[in-house]
């Protein structure tokens, strides 16, 4: 098991990393008219850029780790107990892995033109 102090360092590092990357992600939407930037062809063009796909994958991983660890912390503040804490920890970990897998599938398949 990782120490809680180390988990909080990871929590803060993922927070700072995701803030920096999300700013770039949002700026991409503002390079043109907001509605136009969401058009199918524009989005496909965005995904076909390798650096942008890597950016999306990093955002997915960082926010998933930060978000599900944050949820775990909130739920552990509300209630304690060995069984409860184990269920919450592994439940959040499993949800995080599931979300990263699902999101990665979209990024990989779209960037490789498999649509």
């Amino acid at each position, binding site marked *: 098991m990782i120490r809680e102090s180390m988990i*909080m360092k990871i929590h*803060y590092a993922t*927070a700072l990393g995701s*803030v920096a990357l*999300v700013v770039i992600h949002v700026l991409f939407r*503002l390079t043109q*008219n*907001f*509605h136009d930037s*969401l058009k*199918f062809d524009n*989005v*496909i063009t965005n*995904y076909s850029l390798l650096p942008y796909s890597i950016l999306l994958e990093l955002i*997915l991983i960082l*926010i*998933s780790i930060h*978000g*599900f660890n*944050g*949820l775990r912390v*909130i739920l552990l*503040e*509300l*209630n304690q107990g060995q069984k409860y804490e184990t269920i919450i920890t592994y439940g959040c970990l499993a949800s995080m892995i599931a*979300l990263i897998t*699902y*999101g990665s*599938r*979209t990024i990989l*398949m*779209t960037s490789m033109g*498999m*649509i």
Partner: protein
Amino acid sequence: MNKQHNNRIGIKAWLNPWRYGIERFAYWLMRITGVGLLVYFIMHIYETSSILDGKEIWNKMLDLTQTPEGHLILVLVIGMSTFHTINGIRIMLGHGGIGVGKASRPDYPYAPKSQNMKNKLCIYASIGLAALAMLYSVEVMFGE
């Protein structure tokens, strides 16, 4: 045998933002915005996955989300993320010992030094900047 009292208030205490001042309000808001942003993030991952089903399904999904209601949700998300980010940086600095004052002997009225004016101002600034970000996003999404 000792009688055990069930005096745990639980979520009712957690949800009370008024009793402990602006710091308690920030604590509460930090958790609410965190959960809200996680819910939005999961929805966003699901929404964008519709691109795999082709242009028609993508456009149908856009029709669902690119509505005044959808834009209002986005405005709220921008406000939540701004507050969560700025207040999060304040908390990180506090955990690193920055801006919480030096340790000293506790004297009456035992006001915690860590909850000083700098921290209070930071919380008010987080709320103010979140409001400004929301105003800007209204301009971007509804002003076209």
